[in-house]
C-alpha cells in the first residue's frame, strides 16, 4: 500500500462518515450528547479538503495531516482520540506499508487511543471496536491470510466489537453519566471506528 492507497482509505472513511452522519448522531443522542456524527463529519470533511489542497508524499505525512486536522477541527472526545491515533500511526508508518505493516500502524493507533483516553476493553468506547480489529488483523497476518481476507477479518471483528458494546454499561465518556441507562445502545465511537475498518476493507482490500 502506498500513500495514494492509504489516502483512498481515508477518503472512503470520510464518505462513510458523511453517509452515516445521522446514524452516528442518533446513537450519540441516546447515550451521549448527539454530536458524534456532526463532529466526525466536520473533521473528515476538513481532512479531505486538506488532502486535496496539499497531497502528502508519504504514509507518515498522510497520517500526520489526518491527525493534526482532526485535532484542529473536531473537538469533543473523538477529536483528540482519533487525532492521537493518527499521529501515532504517522510515527510508526514506513514508506510503503504491507499487511503486516498496516497491522503495526493500526496497533500504534490503538495504543494512542488508550494512552489518551485510558479506556479498557469493555468500557463501551471505540476501543471495543478497535482492539478486536487490530487483534484480528494480527491473527490473520500470522495465519498468512491475504490482505483482502485480513482486512475483511478486521472489519468483521470491529463490527462484532461494536455489537458487543450494546449490552454494556459505559464506564468512559459521556455515556458513563447514564449509569445503567447506558445499556441497550451501541457506542457511537465504536460505530465510527467500525466504519474506519470497513473503509480499509473496501479501499485496500482489492490488492495484495
Amino acid at each position, binding site marked *: 500500500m502506498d500513500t495514494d492507497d492509504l489516502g483512498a482509505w481515508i477518503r472512503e472513511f470520510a464518505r462513510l462518515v458523511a453517509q452515516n452522519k445521522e446514524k452516528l448522531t442518533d446513537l450519540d443522542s441516546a447515550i451521549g450528547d448527539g454530536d458524534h456524527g456532526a*463532529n466526525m463529519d466536520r473533521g473528515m470533511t476538513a481532512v479531505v479538503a486538506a488532502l486535496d489542497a496539499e497531497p502528502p508524499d508519504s504514509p507518515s505525512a498522510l497520517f500526520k495531516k489526518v491527525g493534526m486536522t482532526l485535532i484542529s477541527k473536531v473537538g469533543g472526545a473523538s477529536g*483528540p482520540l482519533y487525532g492521537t491515533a493518527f499521529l501515532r500511526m504517522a510515527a510508526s508508518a514506513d514508506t510503503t506499508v504491507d499487511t503486516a505493516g498496516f497491522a503495526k500502524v493500526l496497533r500504534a493507533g490503538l495504543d494512542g487511543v488508550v494512552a489518551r483516553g485510558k479506556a479498557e476493553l469493555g468500557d463501551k468506547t471505540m476501543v471495543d471496536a478497535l482492539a478486536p480489529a487490530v487483534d484480528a488483523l494480527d491473527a490473520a497476518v500470522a495465519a498468512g491470510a491475504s490482505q483482502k481476507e485480513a482486512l475483511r477479518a478486521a472489519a468483521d471483528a470491529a463490527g462484532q466489537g461494536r455489537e458487543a458494546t450494546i449490552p454494556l454499561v459505559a464506564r468512559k465518556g459521556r455515556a*458513563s453519566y447514564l449509569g445503567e441507562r447506558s445499556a441497550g445502545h451501541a457506542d457511537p465511537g465504536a460505530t465510527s471506528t467500525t466504519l474506519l475498518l470497513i473503509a480499509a476493507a473496501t479501499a485496500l482490500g482489492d490488492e495484495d
Partner: protein
Amino acid sequence: MKKLINDPANVIADALHGLALAHPELRVDHENRIVVRGDAPVQGKVGLVSGGGSGHEPLHAGFVGRGMLDAACAGEVFTSPVPDQMVAATKAVDGGAGVLHIVKNYTGDVMNFELAAEMVAAESGTEVASVIIDDDVAVQDSLYTAGRRGVGATVLVEKIAGAAAEEGRSLGEVADVARKVNAYARSMGLALTSCTVPAAGKPTFDLPDDQMEVGIGIHGEPGRRRVPVAPANEIAEMLVSPILSDLDFTGGDGVIAFVNGMGATPLIELYIMYNEVSQLLAKAGIPVARSLVGPYITSLDMAGCSVTLLKADDEILRLWDAPVNTPALRRGV
C-alpha cells in the same frame, strides 16, 4: 424548532459577533473563536483560561473580564473546543506569571486541554497548570469511570480563582484556590424540558408533560431518573439532599448557595426555588453566607434548574466578594 437563529451552522459565529458588538471592552478573535479581556495580557498576573462547548451562555465568555477569566474558548454547541483555540487563548493572556486552565470534567474537554497544554509546552516557555471541575453529585464517582461532570461549581471557581489571580498570587496558589473551591462544591440539576441542539433541530430527549428528569448535566444528556412533576419544595429536596449527603456542609463559615437556571426558566421561578433551598438549608443548620440566583451556566433552551452549594471559609468569602467586571457578573467596580 423555534429559535432566534439564522443557519444552525452559524450559531456560534453569529453569537460571537453579537457579543463582540455588545461588549467592545472585550477582544473577540473570530478566527479562533476566543474571547479575551481587552487589557490582556496583564503583566505579572496569572492568566485564567476556560472554555468548552457552547450552549451554556453566559458561561464562559460572559465571565471574561477583570476579576474573573482572561480568556474563554467557544466550541461548537456542546462540543469541546479544539486545542488550537486553547493554545491561542493561552498565548493571548500570558502575562509572565503562567496560565491556569479551568476545565470542566468531560472527556473531550479534558483531552483537548491536555493536548493544548502539551502543545504550549512544546512551543513556548509559558507555564500552564490545569484544574478539573467535577462537582455533579448526580454522577457516581469512581476511579474506573469518567468521573463526575463539571457543572455549577465552574462559575464559582472562575469567580474565586479569578479574584485570587487579580490579587497577584502565583500560579500554584491560584490553582490551589481553584482546587479547593472544586473540592468544597457540589451540584445537582433537574430538567423540566429537554433542550434542542440547533443542528439537530429536535429535542435531545422526549419528556412527557407530566415527567421531569432528575440528575441531568448541561448537555441535554438524559438524567439518572425520571419522576412525575412535583412542586418546588419537593424539587428542592431532590436537589439539596443528595448534595448534603455527599459532603458535610456544617461547621465552617456557611455556604455560598447558587440556584442556577438552565436557560428557559424565568427568574421568578428561580427565586421560588431559592426560597425552598434556603428553607432546607436552615432546617439542616447550614447558614447561607452568600447567594447567587440566575441563569449562569445553561443548557440552551432547557427549562429547569440546578443547585450548587460551596462550603465557604474566610478566604473563599473574601475572594467571592472581590470586585469583578464581566458581562454576566459585575460588582464592586
